[in-house]
């Protein structure tokens, strides 16, 4: 992609890629709300997610999971969309309750629990 996409365009592209992947298996797929869990709701495996990331890198020219975001913090469609939006608009990282922040808090809490044991 030659020009920087808008937040809405990024969302559309990510949704479209997910729907195309799902359509390969289940035929026609309806609109995504964004709240769907990639694994639990949509049934995507980690390899499916890797394929999505490879396709989105080819289309958008960025890979947010190379450095910016941990793939393990991505649970829902919206998480995935935000990761790509953040790759183009780093200022989004400062938002409260951001995926990365939330994931970091979860990790910190896990570490604290492990230490207490």
């Amino acid at each position, binding site marked *: 992609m030659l020009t920087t996409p808008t937040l809405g365009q990024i969302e559309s592209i990510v949704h479209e890629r997910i729907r195309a992947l799902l359509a390969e298996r289940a035929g026609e797929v309806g609109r995504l709300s964004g709240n769907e869990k990639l694994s639990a709701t949509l049934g995507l*495996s980690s*390899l499916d997610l*890797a*394929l999505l990331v*490879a*396709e989105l890198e*080819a289309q958008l020219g960025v890979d947010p999971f190379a450095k910016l975001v941990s793939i393990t913090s991505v649970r829902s469609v919206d998480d995935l969309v935000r990761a790509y939006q953040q790759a183009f608009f780093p200022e989004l990282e400062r938002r409260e309750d951001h995926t990365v922040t939330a994931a970091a808090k979860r990790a910190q809490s896990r570490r604290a629990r492990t230490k207490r044991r």
Partner: protein
Amino acid sequence: MPQARRVALVSGGSRGLGAELVSGFLERQYGVATLSRTKTTFIIDMLRSRRRRNFHWRAVDGRDHEALRAFVKEAGEQLGRIDVLVNNAGIAMEGILPTMRVRDIVEAIEVNLTAALVLAQACSRFMLRQGAGCIINVSSVHAIRGRAGVAVYSATKAALDGLTRSLARELGPRQIRVNSVAPGYFESDMVSNLPDAEKKRIARRTPLGRLARIDEIANAVHFLTSDQASFITGQTLVVDGGITC
């Protein structure tokens, strides 16, 4: 650059086994991308030859992860796809562990293992999209049998075999095969440093009574990347004249 039918990326293709593999893939009508730290006479000849249309080379230091990723992207874009990755680049870090410099240990891990992981990751992106691919990790008999003086080298090569098995399971559902080739002693720059007496001793211990020719190792790689090996994945093919049997 015209798009070749299949494309192989070989790390460390400027000399030895890597150069043999580059030539072999080109003979098999592959497009070939290779990287090395230095531009050897082999690379210069290739860039001047009529086969240069299907040949892509860049000077890349295996310790530079970003440069490795950029090379894969560039090669994939120029040659159109990546069907085969051969993680061949490696350094022989000799010396017993107790007296080895830590920076030499780190360098061996970076070049022999981390670079292979980074290349496999970057190439697998292409292969996932293609729904097919083949990765070969060039391991060593030292991953299987211990030998004094090569502890770090052995560790990196054994790690490659572990990578082969797990990556085969990760990528198998997308028809990407991952295998190791573990060469024994073969005529190469690494072996040329051994004293003649040591080479003779190795030959005596080898059931086939000699060191391998370089093409005998390359043939194993070509077999595993061919359709004849279409149901083989997660394996280590030992090509050592029987020295480990």
